[in-house]
């Protein structure tokens, strides 16, 4: 098993955190992992993106040209990654914010109204977790339970009250795709 997953959106949409959470979950169940943000002038321009690699073996390159799985949270990310996603790859789309079509037949696309669901469940800032849940259903790279555990284990103390709501939202996103 060797998989590259990109999470991409605007700053503030939680792309970096979602990627980190997945990285923690995979590490905690014994996988090799790397997490790398795109940094640079882009950072100020409001793009937030990270690449996560999860593997059974030692990881060579921490970056890839054509990722296996991409979670896109906004239109600019969609524009970029609908092209760059690998053939046969999985594209998880935040359809609340994205109106661009995927335009490809050789990939699997899952549309999830992330903002709407998160807002409905109390806080639009949990959009990233809705999409992450959906991704795990479409692509069980780690078990949902591992990600839930990672939330419990790695959220800083002052954020502990957010664990339960995030788990609920994560599950909701998961069901959204499981019932697809």
């Amino acid at each position, binding site marked *: 098993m060797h998989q590259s997953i990109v999470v991409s959106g605007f700053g503030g949409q939680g792309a970096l955190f979602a990627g*980190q959470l997945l990285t923690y979950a995979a590490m905690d169940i014994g996988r*090799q*992992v*790397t*997490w790398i943000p795109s*940094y640079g002038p882009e950072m100020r321009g409001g793009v937030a993106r990270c690449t996560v690699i999860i593997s059974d073996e030692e990881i*060579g*390159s921490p970056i890839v*040209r054509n990722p296996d799985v991409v979670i896109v949270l906004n239109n600019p990310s969609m524009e970029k990654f609908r092209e760059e996603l690998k053939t046969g790859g999985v594209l998880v789309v935040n359809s609340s914010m994205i109106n661009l079509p995927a335009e490809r037949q050789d990939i699997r696309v899952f549309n999830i109204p992330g903002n709407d669901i998160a807002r409905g469940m109390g806080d639009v800032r949990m959009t990233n977790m809705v999409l992450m849940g959906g991704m795990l259903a479409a692509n069980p790279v780690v078990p949902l339970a591992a990600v839930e555990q990672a939330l419990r284990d790695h959220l800083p103390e002052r954020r502990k009250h957010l664990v339960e709501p995030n788990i609920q939202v994560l599950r909701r996103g998961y069901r959204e795709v499981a019932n697809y």
Partner: protein
Amino acid sequence: MARELWKGNEALAEAAVRAGVVAYFGYPITPQTELLEYLSLRMVRLGRTFLQAESELAAINMVYGVACTGVRVMTSSSSPGISLMQEGLSYIAASEVPVVLVDIMRGGPGLGNIQPSQGDYFQVTRSCGHGDFRPLVLAPATVQEGVDLVYEAFDLAEKYRTVVIVVADGNIGQMMEPAEMPPMRDISTEQPDWALVGADGRSHRIITSLFLSAEKLETLNLRLQAKVQRVRENEVRYREHRAEDADILMVGFGTMGRIAQTAADMARQKGIRAGVFRPVSLFPFPSAALETRSHQARRILVVEMSAGQMLEDVRLAVGKDYPVEFYGRMGGVIPLPDEVFDAVEKIHAEMCHD
């Protein structure tokens, strides 16, 4: 200690803390800043010295001052800041005081950009100041390796009374990877017999880099050269990946070593016997080991995030008749595994024609 997920810059900082660094001086510069930010809290909490200097020029001279007192000290920066430190590094080398420096490289020349680069290879291995001196230069490829090298760097700096530079591209500073931290060392209370600690009960000690007599300055230089020789003999480090039977041997350090590893695996899937030789010590360069390995390979492909700087060391190691190819990108562009694989495939095709 369990494996934990660490951001590269913060992991390097924590490794220094555990190695017993007593004082840190630095100046903010991307993509190194998290190292300074991490220590701004960690050092203060431990009651150790942290100071944000007004410039890298000041930072390296603060470091120089502390080093003269025989206490573990370090600084960190990124390429343009290292350029500013050159003056201090030359004085430190001439004074033979131990200093650890971390360089998280970014794109240059000039203000360049903050993307990852390996364009400081010449600067750190050849030209980090005026005069004849060569710092020990170590280049990690993973966060764990960075932790281990920083931890050890302090011992090496003291063993040889020299500058040790741990050099990594911005990727390694910014990425997160699991790493296991080494144990916390006690801060050494031992005072080296050259340290300036006050001449109570003895005659004074002097640390200087001024030797007005040419013969005396030559004597210092001969001692520095003897040190370089000992470093060459004892501190060579490198790693290999599928190199034992490789026809095409890629040579790359840091992140490029990892990218080459992925490219080698891609090549193997296509039946091309490719492997990787990854220098970990850039100075001393693992020339002999590479030369030996080159006998069994048929071609060498050097991969770098630069115009080809380490390339010169590879050429020196294998001789001018050996077929050495190069693939690199500049300006902060990272050569991705598929590009490197393409370069391997091209060489393979040429070899089949020969």
